[in-house]
């Protein structure tokens, strides 16, 4: 199947899901050590590995996923993530993709994507019993959603994601392992925020390149 159905908005090109999968897996693999180091500072040092294990598993079945219609493909990817990542990020990223699959249409435009993405974020927040402002991946997901709604370009969305990840540095963690640290969590970037920003940029860049 092809995810390249958003040409009209200019943010998504003729890019197939296999290419997107390999772009996301590549960025996670390339930054796995950085993610682990971030998680070592205020977590337990496994985030890079967790994400890599999950996205490599997805890459391993990319053919099969790409053969499905987009909603089914995203649901299957989410399930795969849930069953391979483990930790907090497994259920959360898994839920993100599963919910996205549930909410999205077969050929979404950017507005459809924004709507579905908003619902997916709600599912993540429900799974994590969390909300924006607690120094988690939600603090990147939300600004990305806002940018999508505002019809920003891929590059702009990716930049917003990076800024949002950076903005978790001064925050005090109230969710996730870092919350055990109280004030000591201040001054470090949240690992899940960083990985989310990396994924957003990989997706945006890939779509841009194939536009």
């Amino acid at each position: 199947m092809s995810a390249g159905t958003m040409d009209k908005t200019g943010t998504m090109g003729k890019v197939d899901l296999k290419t997107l999968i390999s772009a996301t897996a590549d960025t996670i693999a390339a930054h796995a050590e950085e993610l682990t180091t971030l998680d070592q500072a205020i977590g337990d040092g496994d985030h890079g590995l967790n994400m890599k294990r999950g996205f490599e598993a997805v890459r391993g079945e990319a053919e099969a996923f790409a053969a499905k219609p987009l909603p089914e493909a995203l649901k299957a990817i989410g399930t795969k993530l849930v069953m391979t990542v483990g930790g907090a990020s497994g259920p959360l990223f898994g839920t993100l993709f599963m919910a996205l699959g549930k909410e999205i249409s077969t050929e979404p435009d950017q507005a459809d994507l924004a709507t579905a993405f908003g619902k997916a974020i709600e599912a993540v927040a429900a799974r994590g019993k969390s909300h924006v402002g607690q120094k988690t991946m939600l603090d990147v997901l939300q600004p990305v959603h806002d940018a999508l709604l505002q019809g920003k370009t891929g590059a702009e969305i990716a930049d917003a994601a990076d800024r949002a990840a950076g903005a978790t540095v001064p925050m005090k963690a109230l969710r996730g392992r870092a919350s055990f640290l109280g004030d000591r969590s201040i001054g470090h970037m949240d690992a899940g925020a960083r990985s989310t920003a990396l994924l957003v940029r990989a997706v945006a860049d890939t779509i841009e390149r194939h536009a």
Partner: protein
Amino acid sequence: MKKFLNSVDTVLTESLDGFVAAHADILVLGDEHKFVRRKVLKPGKVALISGGGSGHEPLHGGLVGHGMLDAACPGQVFTSPTPDQMMAAAEAVNTGAGCLFIVKNYEGDVMNFDMAAEMSEGVMQIVTNDDVAVENSSYTTGRRGVAGTLVVEKIVGAAAEQGMALKELKALGERVNGATRSMGVALTSCTVPAAGKPTFDISDGEMEFGVGIHGEPGRRRDTLKSADAIAEEICAAILGDLGERAKGPALLFINGFGGTPLMELYLMYNSARNIFENNGVRVTRSLVGSYVTSLDMAGCSITLTMLDEETTALWDAPVHTASLRWGM
């Protein structure tokens, strides 16, 4: 990194293979290393399943067997297992009387067990959260489940063995968890095999106070104190948190984190016991050893569980697992 291993990718599976081979009289390994279960199941008994990230051995696999767990699901090192593991374990050991998940309070564990419970039938859950080191827990994730989890598993395991029903087991487990407090201190960092380097740096004269079991930093960094001073502060936190309840019979559990020898653990036991006994607690049961570990970390935790007649008898009931065994 100095560890006995062949490759970081196979540490876990090789270790599990060895573990199950060494205890083949009582244990069986699930497909794809998804779980370790009792060899002989007891029809009609509620199945107890626990699990969590690996690196805490013998928790939980070493606590599978008669009088304790029916299955344990090992995640990657310090990473909660995935829902398919708990689903496969539940399917393997649920003989019809239902299934109780015993989950340590970490969001990863809670969410993965939740997802498994949602996709399985007849499952209830207990979440343990005995770590008093976490302050202001009401606005956050809450307290961590640490060494006290073993106490919950032992007591609930004995009751399950005796035929207690699912709902009562959950209530019992919550009661034991509610009567249990723990706090730990690390002298060195652990080294996660895949990371290859210590999780945190710590100098020779320092300790990490109020640490968890994943190499995550603790309450605060402090200069290394005497055993008595360390025990004094931990016991005070435990007693303070228990408040009025800290009177009468109790189990004192000194738990090593993996790199601390027994000689030091017994010395800490000596300190802690004296402090508790001087404060109205009667130590009637004891456990000293490295049971809820953090890989190779040097350090220990102190756990106190207030006991009553029922829980004392359940603690004493026969158990036959790889790491905890008595009465049979």
